[in-house]
């Protein structure tokens, strides 16, 4: 993350049109990509749970979606700040990328209430997995729909090298890798914490202290 920040502020050139404001791009876009990939990954882990009936996959799916939601909050906030600086508005409802991300975010915001509304752990894991798979399939479809839409107000950065010179591309890729590593580290941290708590609870139950 330090290397990425160093590249963003000391290596990547200042963009001509947006100026310093374009530096938000190296934070906002990797956050959005990692967050969306996290949602899809949560769905894949949910498939693994339904196939194997192994509760560990359900826990991994839950943690990945939880972390993607946190990253999603950061995406919406940094995107709003960027929109305000660039377009003069905090939010533009006519912009399909913004609205589609909000829809995905709100969809996943219902994941936790749905999950914890079910008391039976077996049913809870099963229903949460079904939700994660359906919503996970919706994410790439949504992305594709936005890409196919005609209003291209939102800047396209991937797939068009003309938009991004070499130094900016390198900085962007390093930022993306850094964000993905941060995501993986936080997921691993939360998984370990959750497993420890579950182990502690089960030991207490075995010893009759709960």
């Amino acid at each position, binding site marked *: 993350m330090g290397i990425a920040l160093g590249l963003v502020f000391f290596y990547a050139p200042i963009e001509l049109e947006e100026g310093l404001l374009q530096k938000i791009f190296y934070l906002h876009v990797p956050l959005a990509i990692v967050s969306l990939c996290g949602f899809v990954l949560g769905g894949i882990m949910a498939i693994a749970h339904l196939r194997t009936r192994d509760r560990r996959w359900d826990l991994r799916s839950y943690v990945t979606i939880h972390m993607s939601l946190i990253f999603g909050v*950061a995406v919406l906030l940094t995107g709003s700040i960027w929109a305000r600086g660039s377009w003069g508005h905090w939010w533009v409802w006519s912009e399909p990328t913004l609205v589609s991300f909000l829809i995905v975010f709100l969809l996943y915001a219902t994941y936790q209430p749905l999950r914890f509304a079910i008391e039976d752990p077996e049913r809870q894991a099963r229903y949460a997995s079904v939700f994660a798979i359906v919503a996970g399939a919706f994410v790439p479809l949504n992305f594709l729909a936005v890409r196919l839409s005609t209003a291209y107000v939102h800047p396209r950065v991937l797939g068009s090298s003309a938009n991004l010179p070499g130094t900016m591309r390198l900085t962007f890729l390093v930022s993306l890798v850094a964000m993905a590593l941060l995501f993986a580290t936080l997921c691993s941290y939360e998984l370990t914490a959750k497993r420890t708590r579950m182990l502690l609870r089960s030991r207490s139950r075995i010893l009759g202290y709960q």
Partner: protein
Amino acid sequence: MPTLASALPEDTGDGYVAAAYIVFFVILLIYVAIMALRLSHVQRDLRDLRARTQESARDDTRQDAAGGQSKEHDDQTREREPV
């Protein structure tokens, strides 16, 4: 000098850049703080569990010792009793 100042863009957007990065790090900090709080709860529960386990182990040892002593006492009394 005024000519130079007027040539500079009025809003370079550095405030927005700082705000975006600060927001990101604040979110990260809040998450880490919540996790640290949860971890401290786990540590407290672990300490409680260890204390209870040690206490119950001590009680078991004491009961075993007391059981052994009372058995010896019973045997001695039985020996002293007239047949």
